[in-house]
């Protein structure tokens, strides 16, 4: 496979790959480090599969190996997820490979939907996903409970999902 083709495919699946890594390593800083290592391996060192259909799966395989190394380095402070969980996540992404186009549309719609969120909801999402504050911390500052914070997060996500569905339905009409 030509190098340009590898680059093109990697660009295409990069977001999926980041989401895959983020599923297993929820810290975005670490996830981006992993993604960077994966990109170096994929683009510079390894021989990709001939079957283009298997490219995303192969990339996830590389990512999984890099993550295993990452967990080994951190084994004193972090227990890596079980093999069973890893496999389940891999299956979820394998099934999603066929829906990558749909996911791409969802991402676009999500960006639009985020703009329509109330300020309080945006602030909460920023605290949780940008500042990486756990629910317990947010609850402490807001005088609520961690379960309450998570419930609010679930509702915001639900409203985002509905917004995405609405936009996709609108575009398809």
């Amino acid at each position, binding site marked *: 496979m030509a190098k340009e083709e590898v680059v093109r495919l*990697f660009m295409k699946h990069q977001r999926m790959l980041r989401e895959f890594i983020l599923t297993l390593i929820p810290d975005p800083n670490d996830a981006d480090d992993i993604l960077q290592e994966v990109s170096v391996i994929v683009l510079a060192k390894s021989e990709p599969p001939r079957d283009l259909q298997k490219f995303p799966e192969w990339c996830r395989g590389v990512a999984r190996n890099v993550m295993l190394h990452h967990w080994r380095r951190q084994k004193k*402070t972090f227990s890596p997820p079980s093999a069973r969980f890893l496999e389940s996540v891999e299956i*979820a992404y394998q099934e*999603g490979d066929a829906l990558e186009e749909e996911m791409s549309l969802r991402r676009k719609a999500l960006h639009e939907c985020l703009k329509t969120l109330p300020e309080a909801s945006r602030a909460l999402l920023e605290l949780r996903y940008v500042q990486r504050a756990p629910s317990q911390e947010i609850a402490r500052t807001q005088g609520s409970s961690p379960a309450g914070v998570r419930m609010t997060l679930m509702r915001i996500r639900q409203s985002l999902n509905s917004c995405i569905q609405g936009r996709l339905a609108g575009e398809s009409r």
Partner: protein
Amino acid sequence: MTDPRLREWLLRWEEGDLTPSELEQLAGLLREDPQARRELRLHSMISSEIEQALHSTAAPVESAFRTRNGFWRRLAVAGLAAAFVGAVLVIALRSRKEPAEFPAASRRVEPEQVGRSVENPKKVSIVRREPGPEPAPSPVLPKEPERLAPPLPETPAPEVPKAPNPPGPAQPEPRPEPRESKPMPSEPKSSPPSAPTVSVLATLERVSGTVFVLSGAERSAAKAAQGIRAGQGLETQGSSAEAVVVYSDLTRLNFGADAALGDFSDIAGGKRLTLGRGMMAVDLATQPEAKPFLVKTAQAELRSVGGYFVLSCDGESTRVDVGSGKVRLMRVQDGRSVEISGGQFAQVASGFEFSPRPLLRADKKKKSKKDLELEVKVTSAVRCGLCVLEEALGDMPVTPSDPGVALPVDLALWAMECGGVPETDPGFQKLLANMLAAELRLTYKVALQALVLEDLDRVKYQNRIAQCAQFLVDNQCRNGQWSYGEPVLGADFAPVGGKVRKENPVSTAATPDSSRGPDSRERKERPKVVQKLAVQKRREGPPRGDNSNSQYAALGLRACSDAGIVLPLDVLKRAQAWWREAQGASKKGDAAGWSYGEAPSPLGRSAYGSMTAGGAGSLVLYHYLLGEPWMRDDAVLKGLDWMARHFTVSENPYPDEAGRKNDPSHFYYLYALERLGLLCGMETFGGHEWYAEGANYLLKVQKPDGSWAPQPDSSRVIDTSLAILFLRRATRPLIDVASVDKTYPK
């Protein structure tokens, strides 16, 4: 409909707040429910996009702080965080004295909390990545010049440990002041009449199971947050009993099952107590040189001014294992004392040299506090398990002609030997005598007998071990496996280089060996083999056998070899060839495993955990017996890869047989896993610390009566024996097998 817990689990997983059990449930849900997998996929997409979208539109005032490596920004956040927690932090730091070896984070970790919720330092509100106009990163991102600085202090300041029980009026203050300025809370109901004039020395931080506070002749149920006064004592009863006592300087004493201690006192500021029996893990805050911590037992007196150590006492001996710091141990008998440093132990017992000796763990490193705490629990659990075995076997009518009953008995005997039951124990002697009097039959039994006798005294029992070798050699199947086997007539063995002589049966009246203490397995001096005996194969066995009998035969042959029995080369090579042949083809990457019989195939049975661990372990053993390096054998490496991929301790893994539940061979698998880990010198499989995970699992599922029998159809004696073998790391590591864990798997 998707499980309603899914979304909450996913949110908590992101925060590192999911317990291992919940994570397993989540994994199970994802495996079974395609809708749940789709939900996971969408959840991750939304999390990633939210983070990127909001990150790129962060408030301008915040972005002004951002630099390439985010240092100034982190500093600014640190300032805000410091303002938020400052006062609390200062108070906490003032009231806390940490020994240098143990960071604050490791001060107290509940077993259930070991994981990210406590230890993961990634809960800091920092953003270090640069914002960019495009949410998606470029394919090859420039590597940052330096790694993220150590995390800033968490918002919750380091807290003085407190009882997990619901808060009540008797609960101690979160940050106790020194005793002089703020007395600990008292328990008026349990105090003796004279108690009001006696100061509280320490507090019971945690109590589980049956624990009593002793006040003179009185005994009352202990409660968390209860104060311990001068002159009082504690007693724990039963396998699940545990008590944690905390002093105001955060010195922490952790007592396991069946411990008795008394005479808590504080003479001129020095902490003192007496340990009558049981184990006690001590995390000792730095004490003044002139006021050392002092513990008395019947045999010894211990002094220390700081560190982490475990003291155990069984009425006849006293032992201390030191993780860090220094301990001085004085033998009461003659007043002689020795100093024991981190990574050493010493024991006062009849027949043991009284001197500091290195801890003989397979990893040969200093034990961490976590290791030692686990050891306390394991020792208590094993002790209770051994009681179960002795009780069960005492009631069991054992006759040499009843192999069905005798099989668990032989396994139990091996577990008792590894668990440290002295050979002088009447129950042990009875079982041993029965075993030696019985005819050799059944491959499992013969192999276990060889293991027991070699470990007991390989010189004294060498002839009987040679008979075991003869049985194993003559019963090898033509394809290199073993089946259950048939009795063999006599045994012919010869000293190497000498003439063949007829067997010389050993006496069944074993001479008592009183020097063997309860914890002697790790340091028992094994006598040197004085002569080697060669065994010849005299007959062919049946055409084929099974891989379960075969892996126990490998263990037995290793024991025979270690006892100086020279085995026929052809037998060893044929067995080795079988294990290579019986390995399945690689399905995924380089992993391949074993099944019960023929090589796993799409049409036959798939590879699974107990057979793969046993198969890889057997191959390693044959390499050892043949003097070859196992690390060059692809079959072993593929087996290790299989174990790394499918590692679990909560079940015998059958990756290709979904939904297999209540497998009675679960503990049989755990013992196979233990053998593989120790034979290969590996501490981890697939990043999992197999011993710690397995031991914690076994501690969790031990029954209140001390037994193990997780499945309704599994044998209490067999499972309890297998659990003890795992917990005691029964397998002797191979000589000259260095740990390869740092380089494998790649």
